[in-house]
């Protein structure tokens, strides 16, 4: 009996471990997965994004602008989201939204034309800014930028 209980506890422990692990982004299958907002096939790992809701639903995006537009269009609140990831432009890895700053630059053309890229490393951001120019933005600014540029697209659903 004791062995069974032990075993069950052990299982429970493993289960919690695996739950902890689920807050990693689901890998994007480039060239196969399509963007939840614009339906385009995600092809460029430098600009992609992903959100996971607390219900466990995963949405992948070809660009940061599409991710922002999706949040706005579906009126998703912060409390409903488990995590948001954006591609760190230099490493092309998905990193948590909280860790990045953004660059909006015509020198770095994003798949959907608003040219938003994200950088986890301050030095790399500075270097990209020196090289490509543009404007460095925080999250709030990026949201407002997408809201302003894509007004019609975000409002059209309702």
């Amino acid at each position, binding site marked *: 009996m004791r062995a069974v209980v032990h075993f069950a506890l052990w299982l429970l422990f493993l289960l919690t471990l695996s739950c902890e692990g689920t807050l990693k982004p689901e890998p994007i299958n*480039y*060239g*196969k997965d*399509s963007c939840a907002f*614009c*339906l*385009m*096939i995600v*092809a*460029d*790992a*430098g600009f992609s994004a992903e959100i996971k809701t607390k219900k466990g639903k995963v949405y992948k995006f070809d660009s940061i602008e599409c991710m922002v537009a999706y949040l706005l269009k579906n009126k998703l609140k912060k409390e409903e989201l488990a995590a948001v990831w954006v591609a760190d432009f230099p490493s*092309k890895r998905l990193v948590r939204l909280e860790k990045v700053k953004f660059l909006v630059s015509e020198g*770095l*053309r994003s798949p*959907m*034309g608003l040219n938003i890229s994200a950088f986890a490393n301050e030095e790399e951001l500075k270097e990209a800014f020196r090289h490509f120019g543009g404007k460095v933005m925080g999250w709030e600014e990026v949201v407002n930028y997408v809201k302003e540029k894509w007004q019609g*697209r975000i409002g*059209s*659903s309702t």
Partner: protein
Amino acid sequence: MARENRLLYLSLSLLTIFIFSFSKEIEVCKGCPIGSVKRAIELARAGDTIRVRGGTYREGTIEISKSVKLLGIDKPVLDGEGKYEVVRITAPNVVLKGFKIVNSGRSELEDIAGVKVENTHGCRIEDNVLENNFWAVYLANVKDCVVEGNVIRGPFRVGEAYSGNGIHLWHCKRVRIKDNYITGHRDGIYFEFVEDSRIEGNVSEGNWRYGLHFMFSHRDEYLRNTFRKNGVGVAVMYTKKVVMRENLFELNWGGASYGLLLKAINDSLIERNTFYKNTAGILMDECQRSVIRNNDFIENGWALRVWANSMDNSIVANNFLSNTFEMSTNSDSNPNTIEGNYWSSYRGYDLNGDGVGDVPYKPVKLFSYVLENNPAAAVLLRSFFVQLLDFVEESLPAVVSVSVEDPRPLMSKIEWKR
């Protein structure tokens, strides 16, 4: 006054003759006094013609910053050696004809191309072969250019990783893309912010994402192109007043594939195209006031998937021939006009002999409605359950809540002039 004008004309034409007589020809070949293309461009003046004879020229990036004609004789090779952008055009009215342009550099940061044209107008890129370039022909901020008769083979096969596009246009106006062949790139032809342009007679096949892809590109015409066996199909998005006529979309077969994705396409015309053997012929999402007329949908998985946020479109006088599903939608209402099509699976009668079936046709089968809302239900296709569903649907039409119908289904196939 008239006399002054005449004088002006005379002096102008004299000036023209003067300039013309001074425009010269420069020959480049291995063993010629001028053996380098770059050197020839240095020596040339606007209006000159440079003839480059056969051979391989490895000169880094050849920048054409003067309005010259660069003509290849016996397909001379310009080789980027995997390091350089091969040709960069920055002057107006440049002609680049008859070259083989190969092995551009590759970069994660910059869009390095076989031929890049930037911030100018009036170029002609003609009869070249482009092979193994990262991006092949790249036009940025360019007006009134022609890209014609080029054969473009990218470095990648379908499904392979990162590569650029075959013919890529960004912020261009009044460009013609004609009779090119493109394969092995990410998107065969890609337009972003390109207006008043015409894309005609191209064949784009075996590219790993889209055969044609455009966004924010208003008032363009796409005529007589073939898009075949591309990774996903053709995707056109966020654009107004497009005309797509007499194109062939075929053999785009795979989980998420389609012949043509229309995403947020408004006030456009899709006419006399053929959709043959695609997972979905056309997938429409958020489209408004567009007309889909006189097209042939042949042997597709779905001929048309119309998502509920598409409104006020007309789907009229098309032929639907032997598709697994003719139409599907994820909505039970029908905000589009569907009328006067020929449906090969229509079984109604025409008692008064006017060529129009006497009972309306419902192209959305109950099962395809179920499928659109629960994709996993696809495993039930051709099962007893689905047969039962179809039977119920046919014998008790009242059960079906999907209101999409063609009130005037035609009894015979529509023929139109090609």
